[in-house]
């Protein structure tokens, strides 16, 4: 009935859409069930089930369930995951319990992409290419220690979807910096002291771009604040063969000094500020970006996080905030994140 109403009046100035909820909530009673997210379904897999020991409001736990539930549905339940060491593994599988409701292998900290490649090779050898393989890990496991074998996996175009849950530091071992930690952020080993407090300004490792440089079939970024967008990307990735990479931004209340209830808000703001461009790329070429709906200064994103408290405290550093704003502005220019392209064209 819903789509019917839309086509009938499609020519009008004011088309009947799904206001009040538009395309942004998880479900929507006015939408055809097939158009709601997987997360809205009563029969979602809950691949990561309750009882896990993630912190309150953990973005990584949420992101992993979003990704794997969508992948389970897209692969009709034929899915294996290889998981690097890190919070996601530690909080989900304290011996002898497991929160995983799919075949799941724990690799080492540094070799999840290689283990996933091996699983894919084994399945191919057994003629079971209907079973799909996901490799996953944190930003440390992905951009630092697992980097070599991930690059190899890309280069060989192994039939693996690799997902990085980026919480911007080594959280499991006590919040040490990684190659994905943003400039100025405080971590256990980038203290807010001296002339240049927090993490150094530099190139960091822009993993999605490095993945694109390998020319693999599919690269995408996403956040836990937009499940429609995230799920669509996972579904697209599962629909393709070869090496695929999705980089999911997952706030960490503990490591960032943020309120647990703000996890999704921060994920939303990182995209709305332009600090984290949400896009997808096919064969190394950017094919779509999620536009900013409500352009927001970076300060609004930084302030609720204690890892940036030194920028606003007694000795504020507007100069540093400005440099961070410049990064956001550059992303907005480079990816065309703002302007034209009405809201309707974004997302699903």
């Amino acid at each position, binding site marked *: 009935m819903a789509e019917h109403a839309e086509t009938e009046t499609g020519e009008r100035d004011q088309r009947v859409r799904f*206001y*009040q909820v538009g395309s942004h*909530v998880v479900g929507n009673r006015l939408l055809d069930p097939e158009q709601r997210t997987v*997360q809205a379904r009563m029969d979602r897999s809950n691949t990561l089930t309750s009882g896990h020991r993630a912190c309150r409001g*953990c973005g990584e736990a949420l992101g992993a*369930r979003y990704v794997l539930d969508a992948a389970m549905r897209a692969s009709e339940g034929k899915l294996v995951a290889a998981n690097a060491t890190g919070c996601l593994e530690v909080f989900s599988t304290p011996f002898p319990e497991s929160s995983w409701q799919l075949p799941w292998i724990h690799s080492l900290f540094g070799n999840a992409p290689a283990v996933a490649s091996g699983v894919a090779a084994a399945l191919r050898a057994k003629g079971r290419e209907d079973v799909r393989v996901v490799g996953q890990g944190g930003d440390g496991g992905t951009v630092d220690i697992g980097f070599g074998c991930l690059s190899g996996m890309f280069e060989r175009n192994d039939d693996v979807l690799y997902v990085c849950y980026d919480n911007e530091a080594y959280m499991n071992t006590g919040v040490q910096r990684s190659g994905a930690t943003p400039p100025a952020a405080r971590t256990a080993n980038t203290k807010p002291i001296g002339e240049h407090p927090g993490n150094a300004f530099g190139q960091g490792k822009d993993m999605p771009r490095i993945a694109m440089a390998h020319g693999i079939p599919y690269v995408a970024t996403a956040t836990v604040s937009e499940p429609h967008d995230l799920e669509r990307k996972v579904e697209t990735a599962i629909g393709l063969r070869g090496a695929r990479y999705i980089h999911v931004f997952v706030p960490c209340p503990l490591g960032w000094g943020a309120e647990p209830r703000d996890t*999704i808000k921060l994920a939303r703001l990182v995209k709305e500020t332009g600090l984290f461009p949400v896009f997808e790329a096919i064969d190394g070429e950017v094919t779509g970006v999620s536009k900013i709906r409500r352009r927001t200064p970076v300060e609004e994103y930084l302030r609720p996080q204690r890892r940036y408290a030194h920028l606003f405290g007694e000795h504020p550093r507007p100069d540093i905030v400005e440099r961070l704003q410049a990064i956001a502005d550059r992303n907005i220019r480079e990816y065309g994140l703002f302007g034209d392209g009405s809201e309707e064209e974004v997302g699903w």
Partner: protein
Amino acid sequence: MSAKPYAITLDVGSSLANKTGSWREERAVYVDRMPPCNDACPAGENIQAWLYEAEEGEGGYERAWRKLVEDNPLPAVMGRVCYHPCETACNRGQLDEAVGIHSVERFLGDEAIKRGWQLERGAEPSGKRVLVVGAGPSGLSAAYHLTRLGHAVTIRDAGPMAGGMMRFGIPRYRLPRDVLEAEIQRILDLGVELELNHKVEDVLEAMREGGFDAAFLAVGAHIGRRAYVPAGEAERIVDAVSLLEGLEEGEKPLLGRRVAVYGGGDTAMDAARTARRLGATDAVVIYRRTRERMPAHDFEVAEAEEEGVMMRWLSTVKHFEDGKLLLERMELDEGGFPQPTGETEELEADSLVLALGQEADLSLLDGVPGIEVADGVVEVGPNMMTGHAGVFAGGDMVPAERTVTVGVGHGKRAARHIDAWLRGDEHEPPLRHELAGFDLLNTWYYSEAPRAEQPRLEAVRRASSFDEVVGGLDESNALFEARRCLSCGNCFSCDNCYGVCPDNAVIKLGAPGERYEIDLDFCKGCGLCVAECPCGAIEMVPEET
């Protein structure tokens, strides 16, 4: 082979054994909050709830209408004439523009007429009889609600037709009479008895004679307030209410080409706009204060101006002679009160219409013990009962804002109290929920959606006919408008809480509308579901430690 996997010394198990709910310091709790629209509606409509039904389109319209008429039996009228305080309060107004509640209400009201939806009676007959005096909105509303509660109702009205000021005040170009008649008839069809041309002179006498157990009085305020204007014998001075009433009864008032209207309320606007339609080339409203201080609603002033009505602010009428009005210019003092300046000017006029407010004719209460009258209106308690047991009153004749909607609300409230009183009981109004303020919403989740505008008759056609000025929404833009509602404070089954919980601690109970439950075995109390609920229908409550 061992049943246990290799190198495992304990039985493998699910983390479901680990009740992480024990970490919790606060818990998430579902609530229903009071939407600002409902809170502001004088008729006590559950607006959010009927919009929710209407959002489904086709199948939902009748359910929406049925929900609406639980409180207000006149939606097609109300969607046209109500000044919609609900929209002033609407949270969406802080996001872009308020939801066009009145236009959806009107659409539903018109659909009901078109499709012949009928009202339902409700309770079993109680054997009690109630007299309602006055067939205006307040009396009609009371009659409707009393009938639904099982009582036998007779309405007596002094006039030749039902409707009160909805018929003899509000002009046709704002409220077409077929709409009014259809909604009145539907109330009468419930079995309400209507006795027209029957003025009640003495209420106690009428109750005794007719064997009524209670009475609800809603006689309105019909006597046009006069101001002393020294005038020559030949000058035509009429009051606005008599003018509008006469017109409705088929008179053709002779106002001439140049008509001056004295007053600054909605009645003045209606009188001036009516004069234009009757052929006046000049219709001038004379008011002693400024436009900002005019009691007339902005839309009325704007529509009058569009129709060529002219305004003379800061002026009083001193004198009317030889077709000339002598006006004195006023100035506002610090308190905002108009003070004479001594400066005068002349204005040519064939007639002067006084629109200076109305007073109630309360003669039917003369000598009734216990009745208290202050400032020309009858005092009533919170239960709408006058000082005389069993005699209730509402609408324009009691101290309150004088609108159709307030009248309808009084009628409903009185009916509930009369019902309780007749049963020897007291009616306890339900507790009001906490207000769902704008700050409780997460507006990210709502799409941009500009308000659907109602069509309007072009000004040239307006000045020459009594055709309805403001048109209704059609099926598609009414649906669009209904869907702009944010559902403040009330779950609309968006599944956000179910989706965003990192601990799967939100249990979805079923199809949309069946809502959710928090699984306290696993809720860690992070507050994400609360933060991401678009409409503020969940709250965090501290755990007792």
